[in-house]
Every structure is written in C-alpha cells, then in structure tokens.
C-alpha cells in the first residue's frame, strides 16, 4: 500500500512538472510593454 501511494505521488509530481514545462515552452517571453498598431496606407510605416 505504501509503495502504491509513493507511486501515485511520483506520478502526480511528474504530471505537474511535465505540465509546467509544456505550458512554459522554451521561448517567447511575453512582451512587457507595447502593442500592435495597424499599418496605414499610404506610407505603411
């Protein structure tokens, strides 16, 4: 029974860590400031 509980605990921790890694990704820190501005004709700058 004790071994079974330990197994469950290890599996739970593994799922949590895996989930965090998956959500975190490895790139792409969100932009801290700024935003998107639509380009306007005619100069598009």
């Amino acid at each position, binding site marked *: 029974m004790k071994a079974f509980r330990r197994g469950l605990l290890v599996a739970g921790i593994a799922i949590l860590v895996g989930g965090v890694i998956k959500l975190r990704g*490895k*790139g*792409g820190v*969100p932009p801290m400031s*700024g935003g998107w*501005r639509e*380009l306007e*004709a005619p100069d598009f700058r």
Partner: protein
Amino acid sequence: MATVLLVGTGAVGVRAARQLLDTPLVDRLVLADRRGRRARSMADSSGPRVEAVRLSAADPIPPGVDVVAAAVPPGLDSAYAKRAIDAGVPFASASDDADAINELGRLHGSARAAGVVLAAGCGLAPGLSDVLAQHAAGALDRVDEVHVSRSGAAGAACVSSVRRARREEPREWHEGVWRPVRRRGPELSWFPDPVGARDCELVSSGTDLLVEAFPHASRLTVRFSEPPMRRRWSVPGRQTLDEEWGAARVEVWGVRGQAREPIVYGVIERTAVAAGTVLAVAAATLAGLMPSAGVRTEAGGGTHGLGVLVEPTPFLAELARRGVKAAVFEGVAVA
C-alpha cells in the same frame, strides 16, 4: 482588360474568385476544377463575367487567358505551371507545401527560358509574410535575420500539409548554408489578438523563398503552429476549418545606422480569406492589372517568391484596401 484562369474552387479558390471579381480590370474570370461541378455552380451565381470549365492538369490552358492563379492541392501546381509555361502566361500558386514549392522551383529554368514568371507561395505565409519581410528590410540598412511564424490553415489539404511540415525534419538557413535542425519542441510566437500566443514548430516550408529574397541574411527560419482540429460533431457537409483565424508574424533583425534592431510585423485574418486575397492580388499584379503595383523588373522570368517579385508598399496598400491589414509591433520586441 484581362482574362484570369483560376484553378481550384476550395477554401482559398472561392475567396480568390471574389477578390478577382472585385478587380476592375478583370473582365473575364474562368473558373476551373477537375470535375467542373463546383466551378459551374459558382459561375451560375456570379454573373456574366464568370464562366466554368472542366480542366485537368494535362489539359492546355484555354485560349485568351492572361494569367493563371492556382489554389490546388499539393502535387498539382507544377502540372498546371507547365501548361502555363507552354501557353506563355504567368502563373501564381497559393500552395504552402514545401514539396509543391520545390517542384515549382525545378521549373525555374524552363520558365526563365520562356520568359514566364511563376510566383510560388502566394498565401499568408509564405506569401504575405515575404512581402512584409521585404517591407521591413526597406527600413533597415542591412538584414541579419528573418523569422516567420504562422498560425492557421485554409482547407483540409492545407491542414494536412501543415501537419506533414511539422513532422518532417526541419532546416534553417544559417550563415549562408542549409543546416538540419534537431527538434527541441515548439517555441511560443506572439501574434496579434485574438490569436495571441501559439506554440510553433520549425518547418522547411517557405524557407527557400526567404533565402531567395535575403541571400545574405545570417539566419532565416519559418515556424508553423498546430493546425485546427476538425470538429468531431460538426454538421455533415458544412465546412468549418476555413473559418478559423489565421495569423502571421514576421520578425526582421538588422542594422539601421549604428544600432541593431528588430522590426516586427503581424497580420490576422481568416486564413482562407488572407490566402485568397494574396493570390488574387498577386495574379492581378503579374497580369499588369494593378496600376500602382507592379512586378519588379529585375526578377525576370522563372520561379520566384513574392518577396522578390513585388514592390512591397503598393502590394500591402492594395491588400489593406481589400481588408487584409498588417500591424507593426511597437514596444519591447521578443528576441
């Protein structure tokens, strides 16, 4: 006045047809598909300027056609492109499939010899993304890196193509040579809202076209996000995939003056609408139907991407006039 042959009546083809009909100098639109049934039904509901033909890839281009636009599944583009070369008319393809683009590239020699322009990758990305990258390059003294990300797919064939691209071994252009890259998992790309952040995998599709446009850049990459899943309980016969939002993000690093800085452009639109509009404007430009936009004369005949073929500013202005609008990121860019 000109006649446009549009091959393919799927998600992208339908949108391209609408855009071509909104082009004043197009006085005749010939819609073609392999069975002719959907083309005929579209022609019946579109007025006297539109006619339908049944056209296989082995058939010659009908007489009187000034330009061919193709929105066909991968594998068929090159066959129609060969017919366009035989007929001596320019050809634009919306395919984003790496093999389809490579096959068009293999026709470069014969197209160049015939003085025919083959425009490859005229969609959201590749396509609009290449034009945005070229537009950013115009603001820089030197381009070092171009990183393109795309989210969304237009139609079932495009979904399969994106899935295949995400599975296959990717390549990136690094310091003047192709380099195979081991997959290390997806990377988050930040698109304009409502698409937002998406996990994107490195792919090969469209990278060749970036290399053609930026041969001296030190690093060129393309990433695709996971395409939308088909809804399990959707009403039979009702198309839902092409209604998904699509987005492209183009990050160009380069030198302006003494400083190295990025320019980040983004665009969001229904993927099929964006791809159809880009295909229509590209085909109209190749046929000389856009008074403000033209083909760069230095490109000459052969297979090219839009980054090489068109002047970016008038092309983007025409897309914006048709509702496909780009945005620039202002603030702290993601490195």
